[in-house]
């Protein structure tokens, strides 16, 4: 039996890395917003969900017109990025900014607002989809070229759509890295993350930078939504919650506020989760199976917060008085 487990290993790791790409893309949105505002943006899970739903709509309306599945997928990615980015910006403008303005002393206020936005969006999407199409359970249509299976060494197999997911995810992450490191906007984001009041004295408009940060993080989340849909096909208005919490775990795992940390954390968490879900089943003779894989991520989160709260790439910070 152990032999079978070893031959299975490469393909399980590959699958974990794929899932990890999606987590990493979502985690980037959490970590960027946390970097500039110090806020856990619970609504980011819903920004991701809206991206997935926007992708379904693209398939629904452009699908009959476009033959090439890759062009279609890219169109879905681009439109979902736009919709989710705009949504994230709107959330910041309409909900978080008014709260920043009246500057309540209570630290829970922005967090509770974020939860409110998250719940509101779930039902809003459900209502819109219900009115529009009469139901709110959606599917990404499968197409033969996308499902085509390549044989790889070590018994691994990979589908065309998985290659597409990896290419899109990696290029977006490299692009983000360039943007944050090389452009004026990137420098402004880093400055605001480091010290908001000082940055505003240096001629940076913090509101503008915060707004752009939400736009970029939201767009990445939207793309992640489409990739998630391509991989797992079934989408509904409540689909954001679990990947959202896991992506947050990934962000903490990498060191929250740290962009490279979020990418690394996503990949590590995706791999660990897939490994755990597969191997615990064998090791415990089926007593602990895949149904516990969601629990697995939370256990990692708790252990992590206990022993290394600053994450893999983060630096320990003392509390300032």
């Amino acid at each position: 039996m152990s032999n079978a487990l070893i031959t299975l290993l490469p393909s399980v790791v590959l699958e974990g890395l794929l899932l990890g790409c999606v987590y990493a893309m979502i985690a980037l949105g959490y970590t960027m917003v946390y970097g500039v505002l110090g806020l856990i943006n619970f609504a980011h899970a819903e920004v991701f969900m809206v991206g997935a739903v926007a992708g379904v709509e693209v398939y629904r309306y452009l699908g009959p017109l476009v033959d090439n599945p890759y062009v279609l997928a890219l169109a879905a990615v681009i439109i979902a990025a736009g919709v989710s980015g705009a949504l994230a910006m709107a959330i910041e403008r309409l909900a978080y900014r008014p709260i920043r303005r009246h500057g309540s002393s209570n630290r829970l206020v922005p967090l509770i607002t974020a939860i409110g936005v998250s719940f509101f969006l779930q039902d809003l999407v459900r209502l819109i989809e219900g009115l529009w199409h009469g139901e709110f359970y959606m599917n990404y249509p499968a197409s033969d070229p996308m499902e085509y299976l390549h044989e790889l060494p070590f018994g691994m197999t990979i589908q065309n759509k998985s290659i597409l997911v990896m290419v899109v995810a990696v290029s977006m992450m490299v692009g983000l890295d360039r943007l944050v490191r090389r452009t004026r906007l990137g420098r402004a984001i880093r400055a605001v993350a480091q010290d908001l009041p000082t940055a505003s004295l240096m001629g940076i408009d913090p509101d503008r930078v915060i707004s752009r940060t939400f736009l970029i993080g939201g767009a990445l989340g939207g793309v992640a939504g489409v990739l998630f849909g391509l991989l797992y096909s079934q989408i509904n208005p409540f689909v954001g919650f679990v990947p959202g919490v896991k992506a947050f775990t990934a962000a903490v795992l990498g060191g929250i506020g740290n962009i490279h940390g979020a990418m690394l954390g996503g990949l590590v968490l995706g791999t660990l989760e897939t490994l755990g879900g597969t191997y615990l089943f064998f090791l415990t003779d089926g007593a602990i199976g895949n149904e516990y894989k969601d629990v697995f991520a939370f256990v990692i989160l708790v252990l992590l917060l206990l022993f290394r709260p600053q994450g893999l790439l983060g630096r320990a910070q003392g509390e300032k008085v």
Partner: protein
Amino acid sequence: MTPGWIIALIAAAGAGFGLALIAAPRSAWPLLGVFGALFACLSVRGWKPARFAIALALLLVVIPAAGVQNNFLFELVTQMGIFAAMALGLNIVVGMAGLLDLGYAAFFAVGAYTWAIFGSAQAAQFMSGDFPLAGWPYFYIFSALAVIAAALLGTLIGLPALRLRGDYLAIVTLGLGQVVRVLANNLDQPVNITNGPQGITPIERPPIGWLESLMGALGIDGGPALGYALFFYLLVLAVIGVVVLVNVRLDRSRFGRAWVAIREDEIAARAMGISPTRTKLQAFATGAAFSGVMGAIFSAKQLFVSPESFTLLQSITILAMVILGGMGSIRGAIIGAMAVTLLNIEVLKSFSDFLARLRQTGFVLDLGVVSFNFANLSDQVEPAKYERMIFGIILILMMIFRPSGLIPEARHRLEEGEQTEQMKATPAGKRRAP
């Protein structure tokens, strides 16, 4: 201090609506009037004995008198009471100690399963003995055990989580709330403890022979259904009384002051010799305990528990109650629980029924420029099913426009003047949200 005539007005309104409700126990307006009078009793200040007397008269005379004619009234108020106790518990954690707990339903679940497993044949699945445990003392013993179990779980969850910064705590409790639900869903194998997604039913209720003979002596005959409705109403009322008393006493004790100190400034509190982790753990366990006892009562009342009753939505519902009423405010938590339950069970459902009627009759709304036939209204538009949206809106609007809630905590009210002065003196750039 409220002028005396307002109290007199509340008393008159309570008496008027109360008599109307007893005369017509099924109509909605007198019911809303009675709740309005209760709200007023809780929300105005001063004249404590008078307000107390009005509220007691409404709760112990008017509602039972109307309830024996219409069971649903007991059901509604009992539900409100269960939520009010949980809101009071969460208020200690979120409001007083300033710790955002998003997995509060987990403690409710632990309480509910504590009685459900031993108060039904379920326990025979994994241990020997004669189950269900019927007979009068068992339910009360297990309610007490539910308190202990929930408090223990609170301590267990709190130990790792409470050493962390506040916002991490939110996400850890969110996760652990899910873990408890996943466990309840999957612990039907290898050993069947929770019976998995099917849930556990039927669950025993404590015998109420004394209450039935009392009702018989008063000439009320409604059978066991009415007897149990009245029993749970009285039980919940009694528990609420205890919970409120404990809350008020805690609020003014060393514990309460330590919680508020931690909330306002953890570092300063530590410098004053308060141990943050221990203080937070106490808040966590106390809040969990209230939820646990209500879980046991809930399982006996419903006769059925399943993992679906303990979702994130449940936790957020209770959070919305605390936020609506005002974080840290005891009266606020009760009012918030009553208002949200009323909205959830009564108002949204009536509105849904109203729309359904319009849809069936094909009512045409003609505004001259546009006209709309309700027969074309999609059946997706059903307000009762959109609680998430309603709670989301409540949370967002309260946070933007009135973060201290409908009935702000007394301490906050006193500080308010000072705080606005301080705000003016702070440069705009320094006002960062979290």
